[in-house]
């Protein structure tokens, strides 16, 4: 058997879901008895059978990936409750197992998976999807690519209206139906708080449930961005969101501004100042990058070398 085939066979067993009691299943991949499957690849020793040795990896895999999902999606966990969250994560990871060299990417397909499997968040579909989008944006903003910042002197003053500005790849734009930014900040705060007293812990749990129940629909526009190695959630107005979204989509500055003020309640006389103020702020935050300065991604360099 080749190394690749051996690794695939063991990975299939390791990534197979655990039983309800968090042990390795007795039936292995392809319906074969797991004891026989494990014995084919793994040596027993004087204390552990092949099955028991493989089970250590099977359990550790699931403990690790479920722990990682709980760290990455504390807001969704708060919405669903711990047990339901774990059940949904097991179902998600069974269909979309870890395929990346880093656990950072574990939740990359969660939004798409939930859209295809809304029964897992029945009754809370919109809220849950809003939260997943925000929590994934948080991850992308944390370590997404940053390109050289555009400096004002690099702009051609004569053709500014035709200019197409590029928004930094790490800047994430979200249009949400619930104010989930508040909820996720509270969830993160709760995660970082250790209470020695069970009574206080119980009180906190009740407060968490109340916070989710009390959350009313409210349309918000959000930028998730990074500054000095910290991620920030910044609520913006619809017009700002439209301009940034249009710029992100490749529209010229003039086109972006035009699309922003369709059906806008901002008086025409105030719009020039509004736009100037927006661009000044975004520029100061370093959200624009140099046109055509895109760095070569690692995978592209890899291809060149191969």
């Amino acid at each position, binding site marked *: *058997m*080749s*190394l690749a085939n*051996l*690794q695939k066979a063991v990975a299939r067993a390791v990534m197979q879901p655990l039983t309800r009691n968090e042990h390795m299943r007795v039936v292995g991949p392809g319906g074969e008895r797991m004891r026989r499957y494990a014995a*084919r*690849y*793994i*040596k027993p*020793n*004087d*204390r*552990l059978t*092949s099955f*028991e*040795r*493989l089970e*250590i*990896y099977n359990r550790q895999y699931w403990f690790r990936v479920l722990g990682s999902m709980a760290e990455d999606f504390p807001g969704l966990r708060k919405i669903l409750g711990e047990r339901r969250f774990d059940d949904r994560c097991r179902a998600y990871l069974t269909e979309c197992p870890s395929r990346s060299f880093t656990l950072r990417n574990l939740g990359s397909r969660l939004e798409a998976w939930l859209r295809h499997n809304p029964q897992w968040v029945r009754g809370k579909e919109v809220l849950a999807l809003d939260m997943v989008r925000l929590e994934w944006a948080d991850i992308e903003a944390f370590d997404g690519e940053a390109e050289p910042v555009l400096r004002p002197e690099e702009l051609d003053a004569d053709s500014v209206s035709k200019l197409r500005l590029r928004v930094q790849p790490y800047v994430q734009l979200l249009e949400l139906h619930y104010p989930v930014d508040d909820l996720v900040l509270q969830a993160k705060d709760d995660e970082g708080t250790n209470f020695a007293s069970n009574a206080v812990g119980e009180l906190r749990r009740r407060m968490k449930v109340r916070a989710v129940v009390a959350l009313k629909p409210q349309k918000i526009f959000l930028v998730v961005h990074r500054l000095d190695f910290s991620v920030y959630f910044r609520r913006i107005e619809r017009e700002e969101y439209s301009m940034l979204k249009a710029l992100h989509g490749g529209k010229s500055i003039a086109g972006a501004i035009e699309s922003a003020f369709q059906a806008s309640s901002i008086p025409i006389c105030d719009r020039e100042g509004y736009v100037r103020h927006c661009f000044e702020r975004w520029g100061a935050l370093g959200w624009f990058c140099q046109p055509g300065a895109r760095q070569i991604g*690692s995978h592209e*360099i*890899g291809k060149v*070398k191969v």
Partner: protein
Amino acid sequence: MPYTFEAAKITAQKLRYVRDFLEVPIAVENVSSYAEYHVSEMTEWEFLNEVVERADCGILLDVNNIYVSSQNHNFNPLTYINSVPADRVAQIHIAGHSKFEKFILDTHDHPVLDPVWKLYDRAIQRAGHTATLLEWDDRIPSFQEVHDEALRADRFLADTQLKVAV
């Protein structure tokens, strides 16, 4: 990973690829393991040596991992420490582990145990004064407790320097 010549060759090829891409020297860490494959053709330390010689890279020597694997696979951890090419050791890791009825697990949630300190002592006798990292990333106690544990490593390093000077 089974310890076969094929696996060593592929691992070394990938290490060379990464090193050439990054254009910096790299070191690989020995794992803690809980299973052995029927197809393995050599011991873990022979495999590690085969990989680093082929890749011409450094070793990040985790002495806690050596101890964990030695208990899980019934070998003498000193044999492992004494077999590693000392001149390739770029950094050493120390950590705590958890004992279960039939195996031990690398959990990074306890102080470093005495047998691991003994292996650490032997490792720095061979490799000399080497950068050392204390890993404690679960059930983390007070800073003072972690710091005291790190300072304990300093004492071993100071003793080694003294012995070298003498």
